[in-house]
């Protein structure tokens, strides 16, 4: 369609571009600039070239924070995506009556993360928390731990909470995708004598590959950006055992006032997230082109929005 007035399309687009350019693009470019300086946020800005980047790469805490977030992502791929997939498969076998389960398990996604974090901090509380109390009551006193204060368990404890929140979310995605699988395909497999479990893994899961790929992508890129749960539950402690890039750079910028250094870390993190995202997306596209004949409506819709 041709615009009635020449300027019209520009006027329609302008508000979106202005607000985006103001609040995201400009600060994005400025963060890049800050990363080349030494600056405390208010005093003189000293240009230092790439020194912040060199420091960041050699900063053991920053390195640890990356290892931690990668461990976190790998574990959440299991407790969120894989568990979500299993649950979706289970729910599918009962279908009727599963609505209450689906509602219950999705609830944590709705709640402010702070509520979940505070609640779980109490569960993990070493002195009067529920977990230790339950273990003691079951006679497993030797199993009690300072869950969030022990370097060996803190990250794991947070991953579990993360799983508690998001398994329902991924289940919902997979459940929706699984229901799109044409019933003739399933019927045919059943007639061939396949068990339900077999059908799930051999037939259904390959057919919802697209949804799984999206979920993995979400889990990975989202994982790099997590903050709330870590900030409220441990804020990086004990001894940096749960330090992730975002908690560390928030600490550097907003506590010790190292704006330049924090910006450099932010740029590195951004580069990693964007590369990961593009890489995974590219991977999907190439594998997607090779010999996949059937395209399901849901998959198409998602492909389109990507």
């Amino acid at each position, binding site marked *: 369609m*041709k*615009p009635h*007035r020449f300027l*019209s*399309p*520009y006027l*329609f*687009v302008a*508000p979106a*571009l202005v*607000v*985006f*350019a*103001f*609040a*995201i*693009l400009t*600060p*994005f*470019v*400025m*963060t890049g600039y800050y990363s080349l300086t030494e600056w405390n946020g208010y005093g003189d800005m000293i240009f230092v070239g790439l020194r912040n980047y060199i420091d960041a790469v050699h900063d053991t805490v920053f390195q640890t924070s990356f290892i931690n977030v990668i461990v976190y992502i790998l574990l959440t791929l299991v407790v969120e995506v894989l568990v979500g997939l299993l*649950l979706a498969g*289970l729910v599918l*076998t*009962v279908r009727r009556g599963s609505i209450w*389960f689906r*509602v*219950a398990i*999705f*609830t944590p996604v*709705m*709640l*402010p*993360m*702070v*509520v979940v974090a*505070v609640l779980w901090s109490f*569960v993990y509380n070493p002195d*009067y928390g*529920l977990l230790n*109390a339950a273990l003691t009551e079951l006679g497993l006193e030797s199993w009690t731990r300072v869950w969030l204060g022990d370097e060996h368990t803190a990250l794991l404890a947070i991953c579990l909470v993360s799983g508690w929140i998001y398994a329902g*979310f991924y289940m919902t*995605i997979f459940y*929706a995708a699984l229901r799109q699988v044409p019933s003739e395909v399933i019927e045919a497999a059943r007639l061939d004598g396949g068990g*339900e479990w077999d059908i799930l893994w051999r037939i259904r899961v390959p057919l919802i590959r697209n949804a799984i790929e999206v979920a993995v992508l979400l889990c990975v*890129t989202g994982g790099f950006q997590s*903050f*709330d749960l870590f900030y409220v539950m441990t804020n990086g402690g004990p001894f940096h055992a749960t330090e992730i*890039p*975002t908690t560390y*750079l928030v600490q550097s*910028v907003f506590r010790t006032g190292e704006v330049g250094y924090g*910006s450099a870390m*932010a740029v590195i*993190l*951004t580069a990693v997230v964007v590369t990961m*995202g593009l890489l995974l997306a590219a991977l999907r596209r190439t594998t997607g082109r090779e010999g996949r004949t059937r395209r399901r409506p849901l998959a198409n819709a*998602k492909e389109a*929005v990507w």
Partner: protein
Amino acid sequence: MVSVAVRVRIIRPLVLTALALLALAYIVPLIWMVLSSFKTNTAIFSTPFALPTHIDLTRWATAWDIGNLGRYALNSILITTVSVLAILGVSSAAAFAFSRYRFRGSGLMLGLLSLGLILPLQSYFIAQSTMFTDLELTDTYWALIIPYTAMGVPLATYLLKVYLDALPEELFEAARIDGAGDLRIYAMLALPLLKPGLATVAVFSALSCWNEFLLALLYIQDDALRTIPTGLLAFSTRYVTDYSLLFAALSIITLPMIAIYVVFNRQITEGITAGSLK
């Protein structure tokens, strides 16, 4: 065939029980939180799994009074409503132009906007915060509304554009032949047709604004302007030792949200999943 039927008869109850148990793992902590708000600190510590001796709502009233919870909720409602309306308005207009018009630079502008789909918050919030401090935007509602809108626009525009792209061109040509101007076509034709898309966008934008934490933590120090996530955090650090009060506050915020969710669960689930599958 018989064997399948038998297997189903055995497996189904098993699976149902497993699911029910799992659902309990989700509901019990929340119920526990609500019940604990009726107990004293000592009771929570010494007999954490016991039921409260009596239901007394005075703790809830106290939490509401001293916790500023009404204020936080109001702020959240205000900021979320304005941001969502802004996202809907701004992105539907942009999506309309990108989808229905061919104009110079549209590819570039769309490309710029879709940067917003891949840039993480971490890539810009540091400079954004110094910018907002310089512009004296911090500690105003705008400090959250502006970034929330900006963060929501790229995805919303993209989704709405997909919706619009699917509409037949003839519809718009017909309106044009009837003499409708650009604004009229957008407002009277495109917007109504977009309603389901707008609803989806509204749901996931609302939820992400409602629960946003990092920017709210950094830009709002004034207690009177805090939103629910940071307000609750402030509350929990202030009353960390008074667990029944803390749980009362958490319950006050949580229960209405769960109620809304249970009623609208289908729409909400669909909205969120659609929003995440960008």
